[in-house]
């Protein structure tokens, strides 16, 4: 089924006034005791930043619950500033996987941009979750260690960095849903 689905088309370059009229990059206030910052840059295959992308995130709360009480779990950022995006949120808890086993904490990510005819979907995993990451069903499916590493954010002290390379060397791993 689903054969009658409406096809995707590119977001184009002119979406900002409609989709980013309000700042939705802070899922919790920056002074929240458990606030973390996730930053990154979107790059094309020439290594140039992509300043006309929109990055959306979706993730569980600290207890692994989606859309629970006051925590929406949804964020949106532009990349107008040199291809970079930024979110303030809390670290998600583990969520059940396809066979009921636990998945490591992760953030679902969609990237839309001019030149992308459909979104790319990826996941941000956390560098301090070595054990959970090792047994995560999605990460452990990926045999190529370097490809797998593209899904794990880097700890920069005041922020977690997750750069997104759309194409070329060190391309980020993307998913088909």
């Amino acid at each position: 089924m689903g054969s009658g689905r409406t096809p995707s088309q590119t977001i184009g370059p002119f979406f900002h006034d409609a989709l980013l009229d309000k700042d939705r990059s802070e899922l919790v206030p920056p002074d929240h005791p458990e606030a973390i910052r996730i930053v990154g840059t979107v790059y094309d295959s020439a290594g140039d930043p992509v300043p006309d992308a929109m990055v959306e995130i979706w993730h569980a709360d600290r207890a692994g619950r989606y859309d629970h009480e006051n925590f929406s779990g949804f964020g949106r950022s532009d990349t107008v500033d040199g291809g970079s995006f930024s979110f303030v949120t809390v670290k998600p808890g583990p969520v059940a996987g396809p066979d009921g086993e636990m998945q490591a904490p992760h953030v679902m990510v969609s990237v839309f941009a001019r030149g992308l005819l459909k979104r790319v979907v990826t996941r941000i995993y956390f560098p301090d979750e070595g054990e959970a990451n090792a047994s995560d069903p999605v990460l452990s499916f990926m045999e190529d260690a370097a490809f797998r590493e593209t899904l794990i954010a880097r700890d920069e002290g005041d922020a977690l960095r997750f750069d997104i390379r759309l194409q070329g060397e060190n391309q980020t791993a993307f998913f088909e849903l």
Partner: protein
Amino acid sequence: MKEMREQSPGGVVGSRRGDPPYLAPDYVATRLRAPKEPLIILPSTLSDTTGPAYGRAPVGELDNDLTRQHEGEPLGERIIVHGRVTDGDGRPVRGSLIEVWQANAAGRYTHHLDRHPAPLDSNFSGAGRCLTDDEGRYRFVTVKPGAYPWKNHHNAWRPAHIHFSLFGEAFRSRLITQMYFPGDPLFWQDPIFNSVRDEKARQRLISSFDLETTVPEWALAYRFDIVLEGRRATPMEDH
């Protein structure tokens, strides 16, 4: 994980759903941005069968009328754009956010990077939003957008279109697309429209003229029905 697989970025999963491939070389911007590594087919979990509450955000009463956001009325041909949003099984997608944006009647966006030398209209911003009702229906009032040039190739013009952003019920149903108008003479040369390789799927991007919904002495109407991926993963064909 026996159900996890890989999939080439332009491969059958995308085309089965009617989506374009990432790489469509005639659309020049895809050449440096289309991923080329195999896609990992993600097994369905709560992470993608749930979706943001933002998709059910409250919207203002006039947010779906792009002709009443300023002091005066915008220039152009006033139109009603409406339709139904359903999932792949034909069930209505209820209370779900739709965001739209478009050029004005002259083919110009308010966006500061739009350099097309066509006039801006101080009575038109070209952005709207609404929620689907209990039957999945939505309705906008706007003006018909103009075609505009975009430098992709010599004498390249985008057919008139309205950009649509939809959330549906889950992360996996998220869709951004474009609605076109019937009989547009610019379809044949537009690599974005034609990036959808499947003829039937491509036709689903074109609204239909809807005489029944026109309002005599006031506005013409177009109908654009939208089918989103459901909350549950559609079963993979094995071959």
